[in-house]
């Protein structure tokens, strides 16, 4: 027996008229959906294979209300979230043959997120990649003409906000060729990485301090 709520939702999804058919937001706001909905947990972010799925673009950040953001704005991160992005805190190394640093590359940028994502999309499309967008994140795939091999590279790109003028771009390889991945990351970071004026002011005011402070970091 199907409940009236379910019937109503299904009917609205199957509406042959695209103008009156329920939208994704409508579905998410429908009572029945809200009752039955379990948000994705952190464990569901991991991808097992190279197949392009919607899940690969979802992450724990989608479902937590903490990030105050509009539909296209990046996730605001604090110091601990930034630290947590360290590949040295990632124990997946126990189970993967490739080192984490071969699978995840980050760079900082002053460009606003909208521009970052647009320019990433333009650059990768020129390089022959296919792009899928969801929730302000990009999924970049390169498909070989050879039908026997599935996507030879799959990368998820996400922008995080540290401050209104400062962003971190994370490029995570979900599967595929490491060399092509590194080439892609190098190109993007060269084009979009921290602008020269920032680097120069860093050198004048703070860079030497950073270098000195880095020496202080204890090694047991």
């Amino acid at each position, binding site marked *: 027996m199907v409940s009236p709520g379910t019937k109503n939702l299904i009917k609205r999804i199957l509406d042959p008229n695209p103008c009156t058919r329920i939208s994704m937001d409508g579905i998410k706001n429908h009572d029945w959906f809200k009752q039955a909905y379990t948000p994705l947990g*952190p464990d569901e972010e991991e991808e097992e294979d190279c197949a392009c799925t919607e899940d690969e673009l979802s992450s724990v950040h989608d479902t*937590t209300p903490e990030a105050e953001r509009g539909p296209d704005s990046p996730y605001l991160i604090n110091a601990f979230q*930034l630290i*947590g992005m*360290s590949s*040295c*805190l990632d124990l997946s190394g126990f189970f993967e043959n490739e080192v984490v640093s071969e699978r995840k590359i980050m760079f*900082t940028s002053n460009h606003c997120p909208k521009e970052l994502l647009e320019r990433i999309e333009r650059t990768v499309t020129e390089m022959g990649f296919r792009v899928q967008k969801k929730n302000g994140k990009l999924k970049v795939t390169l498909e070989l003409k050879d039908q026997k091999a599935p996507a030879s590279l799959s990368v998820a790109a996400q922008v995080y906000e540290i401050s209104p003028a400062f962003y971190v771009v994370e490029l995570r390889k979900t599967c595929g060729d490491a060399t092509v991945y590194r080439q892609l990351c190098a190109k993007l970071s060269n084009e979009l990485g921290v602008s020269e004026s920032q680097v120069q002011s860093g050198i004048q005011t703070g860079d030497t301090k950073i270098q000195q402070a880095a020496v202080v*970091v204890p090694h047991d």
Partner: protein
Amino acid sequence: MGCFHSKTRKQFPGHEDPVLLASQTAFSVSEVEALFELFKSISSSVIDDGLINKEELQLALFKNRKKENLFANRIFDLFDVKQKGVIDFGDFVRSLNVFHPNAPQEDKINFSFKLYDMDGTGYIERQEVKQMLIALLCESEMKLADETIEMILDKTFVEADIDQDGKIDKSEWHNFVVRNPSLLKIMTLPYLRDITTTFPSFVFNSEVDEVAT
């Protein structure tokens, strides 16, 4: 069980009964045995003594036994439960247990607090967070001006350090994590759910009667 002569107790000083470990953790008996396969390969990679030393941990995680860093040191210290300078099998299973998707939130919160409280004072001090941020930036080859780093710390501490004493105590950390659940993302390893498929060779080495599994 009769066909296989078990050498495990002689070779592995910290080896514990898989059934006992399974009862104390979120792992099933077969999963504990699969972890034993993983443990064997890590613990024999540099010195074949049935224990994981720091180099072996670094080798397993970073494929580079010489790669020392702040975070790897903390992970090692926390996994080395008995503070002997080596990780035995029991330590290994119990520590990895915290990273299991089904492990209690409370355990993950406590582990992450200890992880970031580098000097073990019971507080996460601002200077410790700064050190970790700088380590992260160096590792990722990102450059940030000192003012930017201070700004990030200010914003974080305004939110986390409720009594504004310049350090985060356990209960402040607890509150902070509850408000920002993604902070615990690093505390879950989805791989642990499928460990028996990743390390299937345990099937041939099982010490446990089939009835028990």
